[in-house]
């Protein structure tokens, strides 16, 4: 699937603000993986996602997808294979358009031409897919998305992304801006979709319980490096305490000050 070879990212190279955000990361994502990524603020999690998605180009290193080098491909070209959900629930949908129009746009990746593809058969199909969300949105297909809640919009973004069948999905703290109830709903939907559709996924989370509970691999990042990785049997045996110990062993420092990493909710 996707492979990162010796990736480094330096922001503001040659200036006083030079900042090594990612330091020589090697990562191979296999098909069917569900990787959770944890780390404190500034550890480079989002930068890693930006590099994979193509919003930034690495200073050093190469990224390949199914063997083809995509290091210099712009974000919109990679988006055909990579789906991404942001923390901000407004980024995945257009507020000034109706639900059915939004679904029409996201139905298929790639350039749209001068045809009118929204018809009653497609509406019926959308309706059937919306039922999966169990939010009653199938009755609101003509409403503007501005009228929907953040949780509903994030669930929709998730559904629309899954339906376009990306090879890899990147979830960048996609439940962090939602209230606990909606966050739980969206997270459960995520897990269900990933399993049902056999998707390959990477998920950043600040919640260590979620990082342990979901997925088959876990990455811990700190200061631009992947400092710890667990998968399979080892990951299943993890607890929050063990993870904190692990960090302590590797870094010889406590991260008890880092409240976000320890957050329980």
């Amino acid at each position: 699937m996707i492979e990162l070879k010796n990736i480094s990212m330096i922001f503001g190279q040659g200036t006083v603000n030079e900042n090594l955000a990612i330091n020589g990361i090697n990562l191979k994502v296999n098909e069917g993986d569900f990787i959770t990524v944890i780390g404190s603020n500034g550890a480079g999690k989002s930068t890693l996602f930006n590099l994979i998605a193509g919003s930034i180009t690495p200073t050093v290193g190469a990224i390949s997808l199914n063997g083809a080098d995509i290091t210099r491909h712009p974000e919109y070209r990679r988006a055909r294979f990579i789906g991404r959900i942001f923390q901000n629930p407004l980024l995945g949908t257009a507020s000034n358009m109706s639900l059915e129009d939004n679904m029409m746009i996201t139905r298929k990746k790639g350039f749209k031409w001068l045809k009118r593809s929204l018809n009653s058969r497609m509406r019926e199909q959308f309706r059937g897919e919306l039922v999966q969300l169990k939010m009653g949105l199938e009755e609101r297909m003509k409403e503007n998305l501005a009228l929907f809640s953040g949780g509903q919009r994030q669930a929709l973004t998730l559904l629309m992304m899954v339906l376009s069948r990306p090879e890899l999905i990147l979830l960048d703290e996609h439940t962090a801006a939602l209230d606990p109830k909606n966050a739980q709903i969206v997270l459960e939907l995520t897990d269900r979709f990933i399993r049902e559709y056999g998707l390959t996924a990477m998920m950043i989370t600040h919640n260590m319980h979620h990082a342990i509970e979901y997925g088959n691999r876990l990455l811990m990042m700190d200061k631009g490096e992947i400092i710890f990785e667990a998968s399979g049997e080892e990951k299943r045996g993890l607890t929050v305490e063990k993870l904190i110990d692990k960090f302590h062993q590797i870094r010889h420092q406590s991260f008890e000050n880092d409240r976000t990493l320890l957050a329980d909710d």
Partner: protein
Amino acid sequence: MIEGIFVEGLIYGIMVLGVFISFRILDFPDLTVDGSFPLGAAIMAQCILSGTSLSLALLLAFAGGVLAGVVTSLIHNHLKVPNLLAGILTMTMLYSVNIRVLGNRANVPLLNHDTVLTKVTELLSGIVPDDYILLVFFVLVAMAIKLLLDIFFRTDLGMTIGAMGNNEQMVISQGVNPMTLKSIGLGLSNGLVALSGAFAAQYLGFADVGLGQGIIISGLASVMIGEFLILKSNRIGVLTLCALLGSVCFYAVMYVGRYYGYVVNMTPNDLNLIKGVLIIILLVLTQGKKLKKSAVKTVVKND
């Protein structure tokens, strides 16, 4: 007189539709308009003088505008120039281009030449009362363009352009290059503006490099009046209709200002000041509206 107001409003209404596309749909404040309007007028005038077929002339004027819009989008997309500056650059360059197109003159009179309007008058005289011929013609032209736009923005491509104006990240995530969409949108917008300029030159009887001065403000004011007067809606058909009606209202106000302004000691030179003040008033009014709405919302939420 009354038909004159409407004719002017409809001719400039084509331009307002263009401004509506860039400002409202693309969310791209495009100042190229001040240059592409006289560009359309200049191309039309030159074609009329050289005896080119009139339909081809209109097509060339439209194409000239499209090119101007594409240049702005290229400057913005590839040189990472902010959208306002990109528009100003093209607009400034177009000033020289327009003088060239007019044959190194700043003004070309078109009186005593066959124009689209004289042809239409010949064609329709007898069927429609003489005073209303131009009105009927421009109602048809403006409505035809409006309907074509409505259809365009209901297609997959049109909807994606609309989504980009609202949320560029969403379009990128769909694997579409937003630069291409901006070029298409700005090209279409400026094409319409140039077409409007071509009709304006024939209606006024001359093409002048100064025709475009302040056009963007007139266009924006018209769009805002249209939005202010009519119910909020996100249906493209309603929105384009609002833009056209806004244009008719705006040019009616300007018409009255030009002909009866002397009553309050106003000269045509004061019109630009009036336009600016009008926009400021509209901004204040629409903000007041929004504030009221959000106040109602919070009350409802607290309940």
